[in-house]
């Protein structure tokens, strides 16, 4: 009976799309420069003069919109409404996770439907509930007619929070006009609420009011800067303290800016934002679950309670990554190198601890450690190693490192250009390890070898972990249909991993691979690139952008703590600028 792989995408990755011979520099190396340097020799320094790339008009991401509505209601005394509004917020279209969700700028009828429903729901509550009217406009809202003072109070409170700035004279005039004497006060307030919640300045990051600098970009106004800070670190609107700092001008002083930046960064909402970043960068939500019904998988995980009710191993694995990133960023502030090399185990899950063979972390005091050297740092945590069937996929693992962690382009082949059979999975065998089967598949196939050599060896090194991320020294081969153990084969995990493309040294195992990744500085460069992209919600398009990434990468490679680096994103001069694209 044959036992074959089921999961086998991207078997043969295109040569032409890579960079030919392995000894050649990648296109990014050839382009040179800073954070993007692949570590393959000298490269010309970037010219950092010029202006940042264009900042496009962006709507609030779906998550930002949901946070903004909830926080606006809460800070406006309408907390009781959040339960009513939540199902409507949940119906907002999810942003695409193919890159970062914040880069998804589509608008659709589904968006408008959600925005409208939410606006109406809030407006209706205001119109029908006297307490809500009092909350957002004061006791004057209960009078038989709304005074101009009362309306202005509402506009300066709820209106300012919603628009993240004082209303312009034109906006105020238009909203005041809704209090036309025909509409009774509840209806007038409802109309103003609905209008504000559908306003372009509520639903988008509108930055058009700054003064033009001599070089061309707009210097953000204090309120625009407050919003940028708030959405960068909190994914929601500025609180009143930040708006007040903008109103007083304090935010435009260096001391005032730093004070607000510190306050924002220390807020729990920044933790949530940084976790969003890690989750999206590492695509931790993309795993489709373990195939716990497979006989082979059941054999692999015997005694570990995979698939049993109340036992979600993958959730535990993701939680461990969250705990680890927060531990190094906030709880025991340390460098990126520490994140990549620490041997602490922070899992509080009995199930995951059993997979790892470590004690459960109590949550206080010193956490347990992987004392046997089996696992170090972020990249060797189970969430980044798992496959959903009983066998590993070294191509996937290698591609994850090459593409996601090192930011190297790794295009898939166009199957139309491949000869028959190129994408067929390797023939299964009870006498070959997974690595051997994969090696045989591409051996001698010149169309595949050149590109596979750039990422597959890293996957082979990680064969020290099985499909659930458990450390192993031999590979157990199970029958796909019966789950019977067919063989227990010795592993080979040494390979020329080429973390940097000119590094021809043999890597003996995952610990050494990890060290090479750290030494190369290339994961730091990749993190810098992605964090910049995540926070700016756009791609780097100018040398100034790339220089900012390079600066961040330099700090990540140095002694700076992760917290310092993440915070520094708001300290770059370009953070306070807006560049308008071609008219």
């Amino acid at each position, binding site marked *: 009976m044959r036992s074959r792989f089921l999961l086998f995408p991207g078997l043969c990755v295109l040569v032409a799309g890579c960079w030919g011979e392995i000894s050649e520099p990648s296109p990014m190396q050839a382009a040179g420069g800073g954070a993007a340097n692949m570590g393959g020799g000298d490269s010309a320094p970037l010219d950092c003069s010029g202006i940042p790339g264009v900042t496009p008009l962006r709507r609030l991401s779906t998550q930002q919109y949901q946070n903004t509505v909830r926080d606006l209601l809460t800070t406006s005394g309408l907390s009781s409404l959040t339960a009513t509004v939540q199902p409507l917020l949940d119906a907002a279209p*999810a942003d695409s996770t193919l890159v970062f969700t914040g880069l998804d700028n589509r608008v659709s009828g589904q968006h408008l439907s959600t925005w409208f429903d939410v606006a109406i729901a809030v407006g209706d509550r205001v119109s029908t509930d006297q307490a809500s009217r009092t909350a957002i406009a004061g006791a004057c809202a209960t009078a038989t007619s709304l005074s101009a003072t009362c309306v202005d109070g509402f506009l300066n409170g709820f209106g300012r929070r919603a628009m993240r700035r004082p209303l312009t004279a034109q906006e105020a005039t238009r909203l005041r006009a809704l209090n036309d004497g025909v509409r009774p006060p509840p209806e007038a307030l409802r109309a103003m609420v609905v209008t504000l919640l559908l306003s372009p300045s509520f639903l988008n990051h509108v930055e058009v009011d700054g003064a033009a600098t001599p070089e061309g970009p707009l210097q953000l106004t204090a309120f625009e800067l407050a919003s940028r800070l708030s959405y960068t670190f909190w994914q929601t609107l500025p609180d009143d303290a930040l708006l007040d700092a903008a109103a007083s001008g304090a935010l435009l002083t260096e001391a005032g800016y730093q004070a607000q930046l510190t306050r924002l960064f220390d807020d729990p909402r920044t933790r949530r934002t940084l976790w969003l970043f890690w989750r999206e960068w590492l695509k931790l939500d993309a795993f489709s679950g373990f195939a716990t019904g497979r006989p082979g998988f059941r054999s692999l995980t015997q005694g570990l309670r995979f698939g049993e009710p109340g036992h979600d191993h993958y959730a535990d694995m993701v939680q461990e990554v969250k705990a680890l990133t927060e531990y190094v960023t906030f709880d025991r502030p340390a460098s990126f190198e520490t994140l990549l090399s620490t041997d602490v185990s922070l899992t509080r899950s009995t199930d995951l601890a059993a997979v790892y063979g470590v004690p459960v972390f109590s949550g206080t005091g010193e956490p347990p450690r992987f004392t046997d050297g089996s696992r170090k740092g972020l990249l060797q945590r189970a969430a980044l190693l798992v496959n959903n069937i009983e066998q590993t996929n070294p191509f*996937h693992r290698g591609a994850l490192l090459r593409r996601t962690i090192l930011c190297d382009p790794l295009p*898939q082949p*166009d*199957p*139309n250009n491949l000869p028959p059979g190129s994408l067929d999975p390797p023939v299964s065998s009870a006498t070959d390890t997974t690595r051997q089967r994969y090696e045989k598949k591409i051996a001698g196939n010149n169309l595949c070898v050149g590109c596979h050599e750039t990422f597959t060896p890293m996957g082979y090194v990680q064969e020290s972990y099985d499909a659930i991320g458990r450390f192993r020294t031999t590979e157990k081969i199970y029958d796909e249909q019966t789950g019977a153990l067919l063989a227990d084969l010795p592993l080979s995990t040494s390979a020329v991993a080429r973390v940097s493309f000119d590094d021809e040294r043999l890597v003996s195992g995952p610990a050494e691979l990890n060290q090479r990744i750290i030494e190369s500085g290339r994961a730091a460069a990749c993190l810098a690139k992605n964090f910049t992209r995540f926070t700016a919600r756009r791609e780097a398009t100018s040398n100034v952008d790339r220089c900012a990434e390079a600066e961040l990468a330099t700090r990540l490679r140095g002694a700076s703590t992760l917290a310092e680096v993440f915070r520094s994103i708001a300290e770059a001069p370009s953070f306070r600028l807006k560049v308008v694209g071609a008219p």
Partner: protein
Amino acid sequence: MKLDRRQLLRGVGGAALALPTLASLIPRTAAAAPPSGPALIVIKSFSTQLIREWYPAFQGNGYQLKNARYPGTSKADGTTLLTQPLVSGSPYTFAPLQDFRTATGISGILGPALNPFLSKLNLIRGLDFLPSVNHNYGALLGNFSSCTPATPCDADRLADLPTIDQVIAYSSKFYPTTPALRSLHLSQGVTNSMSYSNLGQVAGAVQQVQARTNPRDAFNDVFGSFMPMPGGPNRDRLLVDGVFEDYTRLKNNPRLSAADKQLLDQYLTLLTELQARLGSNQTLSCTAPAAPGSLANNVGTNPTDIATKWRLFLDVVAAAIMCGQTRVVTMGIHKALGPGPDANNPALFGHYHSEDASGGTWHGLAHDFGNPNARRMLRGINSWIASEIFAGLCARLDVPTGDGTTFLDHSLIYWGNELGFNHIGYSVPCLLGGSAGGFLRTGRYLDYIDWNGRAYFSQEDGNVIKGIPHNQLLVTILQAMGLAPADYERNGQPGYGSVSTSGRDPNLWPVNYELGSVGQVLPGIRA
């Protein structure tokens, strides 16, 4: 009956309204009147399709297999040889589907659940994607430049086009007045749909449409449409008018780029639609079904979750069509049930085909097509789609409209696949249900492959022999929905969708097609 959207939405906000299915709540005569026009429902499956399992392999009653005609060649693929000419002077052939009816259906994949509807189906072979595609989102609806980010292709270089469902949904011929919902898009697990839209703005940016993954959201899209408030003019219409002016003012700000203004144009288009709905006197033409409970996007592959959600989705689709709330629907079947790896275990597994073809077991099975066990599972997945999704939809819609026809007759259900066999864009399978209100002749198996032509390439199920441009299916659907060439043709090019074969090696693939007829309906398919 008039519904207040807010009342409805408030009602569905609570979990207490969770119901197992809507089907029992949709009266068999739910609609008060026959539909106002044809409906298009698109079903998309993924990765390789097992061609030999998809098409009949029937012998007897005068039929023989291709093996008899083409022994020892790749053309001897074990499927039934058709001999009746479809159109004189062409190599195209056909046969009545009833001829292949057996207790197990008409093929390995098209099982017995379809038997009651054979007279209303068209099974089509030989539709070729001319552009060189890979895993993609919208090729089956005319956007060939939509290969997934992880699997780029030559066709990516082509300009994005709206998919035909969106061309139809924004056509004033199809919807003379603003409908409750222009189109409904459904999926499980993946929020990017197969559809691309410019919101009806000819020069507007084309963006991918997002799919609903929660039946409650789908229900709200359909039945939470903007109904007028009881009594008097709509007070919200005036507010939206003011908001429209706000967006217009912002658009005139000189500190916005052309791209920014394009985004604002999309807002304005959407607001215009909202204004139209708020200003209309739409009423439901049927009894509104009860709302389903919320089932959030399922990230796993629990079989019960998958099956339950598809049942609810199909109920929403049927109710939407029968109530006239929308007449355009797409469904990306990223998740389906099928057998597991143990052939002796009858339990159905959940299978997932991820958006970028990098996750889930389904795509892996597709790559393992040479393995009989993988083929068994793949066949099972597609059989499940045939019986539970396609036939399930047919059954829900085969309900009298009151004019002697059924909603199925008025519809066109199009089951297409992401690709043909493996990653081959040739001979992409197609099953059509309904006649689109009599536009199509039904009940036949149409084969557009020139079997006497050159077999360029073959791999397992994947015979590459020149067929007919898939573009002609697009034209067929567009015209079946009531559009004329002037409504969809661009830049003087006949038909719809690219006919570029750039990047294809002419030694490996057919590239020379008769493009003179690319703007015409598929030969022999019209009633």
